[in-house]
C-alpha cells in the first residue's frame, strides 16, 4: 500500500506546468487535491513516472459567480464550494451536490475540478457538470480551449484530453428562471460512493405547470448522461404531477451495471425512486422561486 517511486515537480505557472508535462511525456500525471489519485497510487492501480503538482499555480483557487453561471478554479476545494453562498445562489446544485461529496476531511483537500477531470461516473460533480450543461477550460501548449461536457467525458476515468494539458476551471451555467433543483443519493455509509444518486432540474411555464424535467445520475452508466423526462409530466401542475411516471420513464432509459454493491435491477429501482422523490422536491422549489421572483 505504498505508491511506486515517481518524480515530483511543483511548477508555479501554467506555462511551467505544461513544460514539465511535455518534457515528462506519457508517464506524467497532474496532481491537484489527490483524494482520488493517491489511493490509485497506493493500490498501484496507477504508476505515473512523474507527478506534476499544480497546487502552487496562482489564481486557480477562486470561485466567480456571475449572472450567467459559476466558474470554479482548478484548486477550489469541495469544502470551499460548499461554503460559497454566492455560488449556490446562482446554481443551487453546486451546494447540494458538494454536500454529498465524500466526508468533510476529504472535501477539505479534494478539488471540484479534479474530480471532474478524474471522470468517475460515480462522482457527484461530473453529474452536475452534465446536468447544468457545463464545460471545462483546458490549457495546452497550443493555447486554451473550452470543452463542453459531452465532448469531455469519454469513458470511466477517461476524458478526451490527452497529453500535456491542465484543466484550469469548470463552468456551471446558472439555474434558469422558474426552475428548481434537488439532489439525493443512496450510499452504504453517508459520504461513501453512492450506490445510486440523482440530480434533477424542473422548469415551470408561466402558469406554474411543468415545462421541463431533466435528470442526471451517479453510478449509473459509464459516463454522465442527462435524461429528459419532460414527456411524463409536461403541462401538469407541480402539486399533483405524476412524478412516479417520470421515475418509471427514467428506469427504462438508464442502463446501469451490477456490481458487488448492487445489482443492475436494484440500481434501476433506485433510479425510479430517487427520480420521483427529487423531481417532487425540485418542483416545489421551482414554484417557490417563481412566487418569490
Amino acid at each position, binding site marked *: 500500500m*505504498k505508491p511506486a517511486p515517481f518524480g515530483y*515537480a*511543483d511548477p508555479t505557472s501554467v506555462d511551467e506546468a505544461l513544460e*514539465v508535462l511535455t518534457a515528462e511525456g506519457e508517464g506524467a500525471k497532474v496532481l491537484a487535491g489527490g483524494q482520488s489519485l493517491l489511493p490509485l497510487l*497506493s493500490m498501484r492501480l496507477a504508476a505515473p513516472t512523474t507527478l506534476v503538482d499544480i497546487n502552487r499555480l496562482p489564481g486557480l483557487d477562486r470561485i466567480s459567480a456571475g449572472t450567467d453561471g459559476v466558474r470554479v478554479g482548478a484548486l477550489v476545494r469541495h469544502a470551499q464550494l460548499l461554503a460559497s453562498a454566492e455560488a449556490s445562489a446562482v446554481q443551487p446544485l453546486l451546494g447540494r451536490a458538494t454536500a454529498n461529496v465524500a466526508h*468533510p476531511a476529504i472535501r477539505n*483537500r479534494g478539488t471540484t475540478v479534479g474530480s471532474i477531470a478524474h471522470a468517475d461516473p460515480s462522482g457527484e460533480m461530473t453529474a452536475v457538470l452534465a446536468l447544468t450543461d457545463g464545460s471545462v477550460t483546458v490549457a495546452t501548449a497550443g493555447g486554451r480551449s473550452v470543452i463542453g461536457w459531452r465532448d469531455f467525458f469519454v469513458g470511466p476515468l477517461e476524458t478526451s484530453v490527452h497529453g500535456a494539458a491542465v484543466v484550469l476551471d469548470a463552468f456551471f451555467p446558472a439555474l434558469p428562471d422558474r426552475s428548481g433543483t434537488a439532489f439525493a443519493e443512496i450510499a452504504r455509509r453517508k459520504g461513501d460512493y453512492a450506490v445510486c444518486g440523482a440530480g434533477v432540474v424542473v422548469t415551470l411555464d408561466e402558469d406554474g405547470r411543468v415545462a421541463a424535467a431533466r435528470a442526471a445520475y451517479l453510478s449509473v452508466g459509464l459516463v454522465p448522461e442527462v435524461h429528459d423526462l419532460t414527456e411524463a409530466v409536461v403541462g401538469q401542475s407541480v402539486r399533483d404531477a405524476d412524478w412516479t411516471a417520470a421515475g418509471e420513464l427514467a428506469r427504462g432509459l438508464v442502463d446501469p451495471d451490477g456490481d458487488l454493491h448492487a445489482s443492475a435491477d436494484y440500481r434501476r429501482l433506485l433510479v425510479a425512486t430517487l427520480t420521483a422523490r427529487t423531481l417532487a422536491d425540485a418542483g416545489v422549489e421551482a414554484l417557490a422561486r417563481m412566487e418569490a421572483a
Partner: protein
Amino acid sequence: MTADLERAISVVINGVPRGATVPVRWLLSDALRHEFGLTGTHVGCEHGVCGSCTVLVDGEPTRSCLVLAVQMDGHDITTVEGLSRPDHQGGQVLHPIQEAFRECHALQCGFCTPGFLTTIAAGLDARDPSVEISDDEVDELVGGNLCRCTGYANIKKACRHAAAQMREGAKVATLAPEDEELAR
C-alpha cells in the same frame, strides 16, 4: 524545472518547526511516523476510507494517507499528540473531546481513536460553542471515520458531552466580572 525523487521540507508540527529530507513518494502519514516519530497517527486502510490517520493541516482535518509529505512544505500540522495543551505545571490539559472519550468510554482498542479525536476536535473548535449540538452535526463529525470495536454510540455520546462541556466553558467566559464573582 526537473522532477525530484527527494525533497527537503520545513513544516510546523504541533507548534514545533521541523525539517527533513523525504522521498517524494512518502505519504504524510509515513513522514509523521517514520521521520518525525509521531506514532499517534495510526495508519489503517491507507486509501482514505477509514479516517484513522486524520491530522489537521492548517487547522483542517485531512487524511494524512492522501497527501504527500512533500506537499506539506510550509504548512502547519497538528497530530493527536498536539491536541492537548501544557498546563504550565509540567503536565498537559486534554482537549474537551479527549476528556469526553475517557468519560464516556468512547474507545476500546484505540486504533481508530487518533483520527476520531483530531476530526472531532477540529469540528468542535470551529463551531459556535454556545449553540447546543444537533444529532446531524454529531453524525457529520463522526461519519468519515470507521470504528470496529467500541461502536459509535459511545463516540457520539462523547461528542455531545464535549460540546456540552465547551458550552459551559463558553458561558463562563462570557460572564461579566461581577457575575463571575457570583458564579464562584
